[in-house]
């Protein structure tokens, strides 16, 4: 494997890690506030569909993003009403949301576009294009020199290869996702809101005693979760791919959940976990079966590895993952 191939795998790692990272941070806000969310998958799927549908019909990807975030927020509100207002089972609510999204997206897609549960392919205005950084090799250079980008990239020096292939050329949502990591860290550990958010996931009664609304905080956390899942879904349908297809999240919501546990509910570690799982996906995508000397690692092992790692971490064989203490339990005010 040469250097450029390695850089290309890392480049696709970044692309594939982005939706995982956004969904993982979404889950982080929700679970840190004590609301378990296994409905990340459903919210992403819903947002993927609505962003693609609106982007396809208006030709404006930003309106698509807005629609995607809106639809994800609706499902987040449903999760909030079920698990905060009516103190229902948060896990069951998440399961219901996943199915609701899986069913409704295909139902509406079929009704609107009649293409067997998918949206039309998005044309250039309906997609998030890659941002070309200054001095990076991109389509413009290809036009100027008359050579394809891949040729130019091969001829460039390693620094330029890293810069052009790995750092430049992603859509704005990718950069946004990676900026969301320090932002999340700052909100969680350096603001009053973050302190209260963490407290409400550990000991809601104490927060309540301090005169801060448990319900308000938890709804805020669930809303942030909806927002981030919405961006994640929109990225899937309008940046990573060009349009919505049935079940296009393909378990990414659960991989994000796995990454969250892997990271023990902390933002920087979440980025590390998502990059690791993104790398696994990128490698599986590029190489299928991997030969390590005499042993051949089948592609199915790569597919299952995020889940296996999560099980191992959860079981505490490699450092213990302890969830927020009040997670999953509805808060009942004492009378």
């Amino acid at each position, binding site marked *: 494997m040469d250097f450029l191939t390695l850089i290309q795998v890392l480049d696709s790692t970044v692309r594939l890690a982005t939706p995982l990272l956004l969904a993982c941070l979404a889950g982080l806000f929700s679970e840190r506030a004590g609301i378990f969310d296994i409905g990340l998958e459903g919210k992403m799927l819903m947002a993927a569909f609505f962003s693609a549908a609106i982007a396809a019909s208006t030709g404006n990807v930003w309106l698509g993003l807005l629609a995607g975030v809106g639809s994800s927020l609706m499902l987040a509100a449903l999760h909030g009403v*079920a698990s905060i207002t009516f103190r229902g089972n948060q896990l069951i609510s998440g399961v219901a949301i996943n199915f609701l999204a899986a069913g409704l997206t295909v139902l509406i897609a079929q009704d609107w576009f009649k293409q067997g549960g998918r949206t039309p392919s998005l044309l250039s205005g309906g997609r998030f294009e890659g941002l070309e950084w200054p001095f990076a090799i991109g389509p413009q250079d290809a036009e100027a020199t008359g050579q394809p980008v891949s040729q130019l990239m091969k001829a460039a020096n390693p620094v330029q290869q890293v810069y052009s292939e790995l750092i430049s050329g992603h859509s704005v949502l990718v950069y946004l996702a990676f900026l969301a990591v320090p932002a999340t860290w700052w909100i969680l550990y350096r603001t009053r809101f973050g302190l209260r958010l963490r407290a409400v996931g550990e000991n809601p009664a104490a927060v309540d005693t301090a005169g801060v609304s448990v319900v308000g905080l938890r709804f805020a956390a669930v809303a942030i979760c909806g927002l981030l899942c919405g961006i994640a879904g929109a990225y899937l349908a309008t940046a990573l791919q060009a349009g919505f297809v049935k079940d296009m999240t393909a378990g990414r919501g659960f991989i994000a*959940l796995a990454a969250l546990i892997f990271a023990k509910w902390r933002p920087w570690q979440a980025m590390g976990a998502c990059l690791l799982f993104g790398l696994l996906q990128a490698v599986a995508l590029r190489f299928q079966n991997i030969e390590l000397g005499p042993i051949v690692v089948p592609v199915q092992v790569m*597919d299952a590895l995020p889940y296996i790692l999560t099980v191992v971490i959860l079981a505490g064989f490699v450092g213990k993952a302890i969830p927020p203490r009040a997670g999953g339990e509805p808060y009942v005010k004492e009378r």
Partner: protein
Amino acid sequence: MEKMPKWADVVLIPLISLLLAAALSALVILAIGEDPIAAVKLMVDGALGSSYGWGYTLYYATNFMFTGLAVAVAAHAGLFNIGGEGQAMLGGLGVAVICLFIPWPHWTIALLFATLGAGLFGAAWAAIPAYLQAKRGSHIVITTIMFNFIAAAVLNYVLVNVLKPASSMDPASARFSEAVHLPSLHELLAPLGIAFSKSAPANVTLLVAIVACLAVWLLIWRTSLGFEIRSFGKSEAGARYAGISPVKITIIAMMISGALAGMMAINNVMGEAERLVLNATEGAGFIGIAVALMGRNHPFGVFLAAILFGFLYQGGAELALWTKIPRELIVVIQALVILFTGALDNMVRIPLEKIFLAFRREAN
């Protein structure tokens, strides 16, 4: 004092939840531009109007009885087994191994051992998350979700690399031999002089499912193990004080649950497809959640709810055939049922309790 009579809890609340789900589904059908009443008629005709329709309804219902019972048994122990799908996949593997590699003389013996094999594989797949929850404290819901994905990868690997005949491109096992063919309801009912559709897939497994319902009822309410499972589910601290081992109950309850989910495979793998294919479970493991919630974790409730969902499945297929309504409507209905009977239970329950209290006050 009970806030509500028991019948209201057991019958009224699920019914109201079902009505809410049905009303919302009707709105969805209206929004698509179809007539909900005509849709219901079509569903009833297609699923219950002929022995062919019944054959499919009962076939689906058989799957859902097993997965519903699986969720219910775990729920009695206070565990949420979301891994029925993976356990059913592994059950399929168990059935395939038993049916492919042993020359059975007669289907009855094959059925017995296939049931055992499916149950063992399913139970083993559930035992790992159960052990990790009981001994290592990892959350059973997360682990069973992860095990669904791992099961899919295992099945994919085994089908592509081990069980696939060399001549075939399809990721599926070879066909089972004629000797392990399970009699369909047509073949069972014909000697009794009852005509039943030849092409419908409902088979003798339906009877196994009904026996399983009875067995679960006996287990939960008539054995000391069932008593231990229920007390553990109600209060772990209480059960521990009474000398019940949490580790033992968690593992045993999950293994029974996994065995039941795995046994679904004798219906869909041995009874219908007669070979193991990818995605043989078709989401039935998840429908078990809706079925158990709807049936209030009681075997008889699960039996009825499974038939209801069997009807929805077959009716939904008919809708997709004759109208613009896609099959995914069923997924939406399933989601609404889970939402109303599970997550939004209090939304229905609290107003109802108030009504009953008001009536009681007037009566006094």
